[in-house]
């Protein structure tokens, strides 16, 4: 068997494989979180890991997010490589002091004398009917904080490769997984191949416009691009994957070539991450090549509602992307 072999795994299985390979490779790596043990994780991500690595290294915690993250910060400072699972990204709100004021700042505040090599994984996003306190897309909160790195894997391969890179990283890394993606499958390399942090992926080439999307919006953008192609519009689809540090160069190069940018995020528009991407484009030489205004397609500025028809209306769907892209190309 070659170590470069690939097979199809679900996104959740890909995360689990990264966790198990990291634990096998490094004694310092351990997991902690609510129900990550026998229960296997709220979304089944940790699965059977407790049976393979034991309760010390796959550690069930009480329901106390601030305590969990604080414990990880301390363990990381003391030489371990903790990986925290926060059951829903919404509950990072409970742990915000530890994430923002402790984890993110300790290295800086100590003049570089200490590092906090920890990973915080948390599922975000809507689409499950879990309503306002369990469905948010909070990436902009974290991307705003110097000292944190933020990744949003959109494919199974990236779920594995980015997580492995995050575990290697000497900084606190927030990995925002999307709960709708957990069951989606993709080709994943068997080897513990890293996907470097800070590299935007070009998911599809195109000449008429550049669609930049994150999380579950990447697959919707790709679906939209297929439909657009049938009408003669060729859209490039770019997935930043890492929001901080952001590889804006790949985005700028693409927009320079196409002259149009459609930025798609699930999170509400105001203060969202795509505002940052927009600024990165208009602050660059791509500005001179724009033939259309940089355009954002975002979730509505509302909390995520419960009713399925309302939830769907609150965030961009494939048809919304098609419509926005068509308008952008035809109007400009």
């Amino acid at each position: 068997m070659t170590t470069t072999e690939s097979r199809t795994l679900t996104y959740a299985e890909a995360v689990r494989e990264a966790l198990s390979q990291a634990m096998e490779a490094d004694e310092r790596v351990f997991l902690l979180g609510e129900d990550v043990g026998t229960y296997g994780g709220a979304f089944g991500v940790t699965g059977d890991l407790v049976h393979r690595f034991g309760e010390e290294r796959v550690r069930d915690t009480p329901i106390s997010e601030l305590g969990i993250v604080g414990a990880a910060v301390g363990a990381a400072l003391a030489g371990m490589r903790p990986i925290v699972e926060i059951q829903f990204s919404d509950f990072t709100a409970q742990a915000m002091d530890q994430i923002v004021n402790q984890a993110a700042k300790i290295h800086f505040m100590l003049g570089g004398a200490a590092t906090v090599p920890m990973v915080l994984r948390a599922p975000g996003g809507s689409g499950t009917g879990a309503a306002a306190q369990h469905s948010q897309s909070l990436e902009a909160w974290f991307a705003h904080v110097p000292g944190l790195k933020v990744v949003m894997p959109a494919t199974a391969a990236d779920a594995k490769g980015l997580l492995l890179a995050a575990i290697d990283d000497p900084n606190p890394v927030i990995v925002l997984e999307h709960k709708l993606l957990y069951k989606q499958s993709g080709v994943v390399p068997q080897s513990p191949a890293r996907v470097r942090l800070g590299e935007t992926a070009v998911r599809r080439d195109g000449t008429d416009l550049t669609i930049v999307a994150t999380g579950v919006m990447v697959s919707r953008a790709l679906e939209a691009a297929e439909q657009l192609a049938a009408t003669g519009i060729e859209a490039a689809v770019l997935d930043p994957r890492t929001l901080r540090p952001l590889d804006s160069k790949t985005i700028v190069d693409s927009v320079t070539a196409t002259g149009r940018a459609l930025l798609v995020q699930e999170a509400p528009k105001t203060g969202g991450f795509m505002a940052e991407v927009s600024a990165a484009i208009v602050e660059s030489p791509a500005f001179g090549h724009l033939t259309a205004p940089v355009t954002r397609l975002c979730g509505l500025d509302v909390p995520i509602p419960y009713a399925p028809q309302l939830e769907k209306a609150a965030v961009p769907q494939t048809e919304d992307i098609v419509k926005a892209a068509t308008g952008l190309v035809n109007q400009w």
Partner: protein
Amino acid sequence: MDLTGNASLARETLRTMWTIRRFEEAVDDLFARGLMHGTMHLSIGQEAVPAGACLALADGDYITSTHRGHGHCIAKGARLDAMMAELLAKETGYCRGRGGSMHIADVATGNLGANGIVAGGVPIASGAGLAVKLRGGQQVVLSFFGDGAVNEGAWHEGVNLAAIWDLPVVFVCENNHYGMSMSAKRAAKVDRLGDRAAAYGIPGVTVDGNDPQEVFDAVSAAVARARAGDGPSLVEAMTYRWKGHSKSDKNLYRTREEIESWRERDPIVRFERAAITAGALSEEDAAECRDEARDRVRAAIRTANAAPDASAASLTDAVYAGSQS
């Protein structure tokens, strides 16, 4: 007051418990048949806690509730059709389809809201208690939460505020032995969570949460204390949830025998028998309570089903108050 021996109280207690049971069985069924979406946390097996506790409250008293809140909502007097409509994503639901099971509130009956955040309602209850105290009111606030909630910072901060300010709050821990898969034993070093009260200088008791009488007695005493201006108390009610934590639970963390042993202590069956033995209810009375609950739930489903779906046209309306478009 004797719930078991008094005909009208026995009937009321039994009706409430059966209504909760039948409502949740119906929800479970709608869910299994794909007619209800989202997620669902059922309190089947725990009915004695909300029934006993809310009976100790007066109209105008407040409660805060949890993700497992159907029972609290019903016991505090919510309308079944509006609850069902909410779960069925209808415009006539308590939250017009925006909230769902985890966010139902019924302010008219003093239910300040279910909460999807574990322990989220605890400091809110203290805040409501503070408002009552500042207004010089007579109301009491009862906060329901699970055994898992007592390890959240929010719980400690909420209880401490109520304690130092002598707020009229009753903290009711529904100890169903698990916070999702985490057993209460593994999550806390103390055997009785009621003992945690000592750290805040307030009374704490632990009672049989499958006996509405014990819950009622303990909560009544705490309510009396709160109304007298003597501050909060903690009541730990020992009970059990028969079903999984939510729809995705594989129940790997507890045994069949354990679940069976608690099913044998079904709070409803026990109370029914006791009330019949005490002569407060006849077999027919008990059957009537059961049938009535079933009929009310069926009617609620019919009414809800006939209502219009929640409409996305007004989705942005209630984001900010006073800015209805």
